């Protein structure tokens, strides 16, 4: 009888709270979006599943290990506890992912046309405007964000998952779930969010601009570039060095041609393993008390705004560049500056084809696209530096 009571008392039905039911629904919703709608499934499948797991009452996925006075383990921690503390709290997982992303990145188009770096810079306006929006909401008492939280929310506009997770795990870990979900969701929504903004800010003639063909880029340039970027970061903004350092390391392994087996593993087994655990670990922060509050709604709204402003800034910057430049830039590729690689570049290409069926912008848009990754990492470095002193 006692046993029946124990079984019943520890069952999910007896323990579950309303918030957990809702969060399980959120987790299943993320899985639906990932599987049925194709929203960034590589991250949202693990995050969604992790959300469900973390909200199973009594399963202890997020439990801390318990040690006795002698330091002997009495009961082990939960899987998500270990993943979060070993990989996310320490920043290791986002950095390894960034190494893998570096190993998958082709800087060729950027090197062929370096001024597209400015488009990647402009798109970061979205980040900082959103920070302003967040502190504004806080100022007017609508929501309650600290400057650390506002900075983390802003970084959603960087459209770069690992960067957002890295910054948030440093500045505002309690918001990690909401911010990661917002970041990946909006990255998936790029094909819906961006085109109207792009069309609104450009004339049909501008959208039809045909760009000069990109020059060839030598192997040496490709090898020297990540080292050059690393040196610039080291000299000017060391707070961005963890992210950009690992990014450049991955890229150097890719391009140097002498460590292909390391590069292959980085792009496959290693990044896949870490992606699974990163996603599950982010899910572990999706508990009801951290997610089901007005701030999350604010984060989702601000994140959308950040994306829109970033897109607009990129397009407008391209138009500004055209005022001075000899070789005109198609302003649509400015929208790719938010990163969301390679989705945003594909969107630019698609919208471009609507105005001029012979105009292939994909490779031209890859320049600002990877520039956006650099820009966001730089913005992340500034945030970590300045907010740490505030």
């Amino acid at each position, binding site marked *: 009888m006692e046993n029946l009571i124990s079984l019943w008392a520890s069952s999910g039905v007896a323990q579950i709270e309303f918030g957990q039911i809702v969060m399980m629904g959120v987790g299943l919703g993320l899985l639906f979006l990932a599987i049925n709608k194709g929203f960034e499934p590589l991250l949202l499948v693990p995050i969604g599943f992790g959300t469900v797991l973390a909200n199973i009452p009594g399963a202890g996925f997020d439990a801390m290990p318990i040690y006795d006075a002698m330091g002997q383990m009495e009961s082990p921690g939960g899987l998500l506890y270990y993943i979060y503390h070993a990989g996310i709290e320490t920043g290791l997982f986002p950095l390894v992912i960034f190494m893998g992303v570096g190993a998958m990145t*082709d800087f*060729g188009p950027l090197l062929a046309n370096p001024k597209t*770096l400015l488009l990647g810079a402009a798109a970061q306006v979205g980040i900082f405007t959103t*920070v302003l929006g967040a502190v504004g909401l806080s100022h007017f008492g609508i929501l309650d964000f600290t400057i650390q939280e506002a900075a983390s929310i802003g970084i959603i506009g960087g459209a770069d998952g690992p960067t957002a997770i890295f910054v948030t795990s440093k500045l505002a870990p309690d918001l990690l779930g909401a911010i990661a979900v917002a970041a990946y969701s909006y990255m998936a929504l790029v094909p819906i969010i961006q085109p109207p903004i792009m069309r609104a800010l450009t004339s049909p003639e501008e959208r039809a601009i045909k760009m000069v063909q990109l020059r060839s880029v*030598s192997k040496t*340039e490709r090898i020297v570039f990540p080292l050059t970027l690393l040196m610039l970061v080291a000299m000017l903004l060391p707070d961005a060095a963890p992210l950009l350092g690992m990014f450049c390391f991955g890229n150097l392994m890719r391009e140097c041609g002498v460590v292909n087996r390391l590069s292959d593993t980085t792009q496959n087994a290693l990044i896949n393993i870490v992606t699974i655990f990163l996603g599950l670990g982010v899910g572990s922060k999706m508990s009801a008390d951290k997610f089901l509050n007005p701030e999350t709604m604010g984060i989702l709204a601000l994140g959308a705004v950040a994306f829109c402003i970033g897109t607009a800034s990129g397009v407008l910057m391209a138009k500004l560049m055209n005022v001075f430049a000899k070789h005109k830039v198609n302003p649509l590729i400015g929208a790719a500056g938010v990163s969301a690689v390679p989705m945003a570049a594909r969107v630019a290409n698609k919208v471009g084809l609507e105005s001029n069926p012979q105009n292939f912008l994909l490779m031209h848009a890859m320049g600002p696209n990877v520039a956006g990754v650099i820009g966001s990492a*730089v913005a992340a470095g500034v*945030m970590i530096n300045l907010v740490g002193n505030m």
Partner: protein
Amino acid sequence: MEVTLIAQGLDLMLFGMGTVFTFLTLLVGVTHLMSATVEFLSPAEEINVKAQGSMPPLNPKIEPNIVKAIQSAIDQHRGR
């Protein structure tokens, strides 16, 4: 306190965007310089990778069962 928060946000905006633009503008210059230097030092280098023609490398993998097929084909071929 709340005024400070706004002020902090404005500061972040100002110095943040300032740094981003400064950094990336510098990077434009440094990249041009880098490319010129590389070109100057090794002008005759074979340029085998055309940026225009290559797809972005985001799905670089062949499906694993195909890889297995190839591996076994190669093993067979080698007479092992």
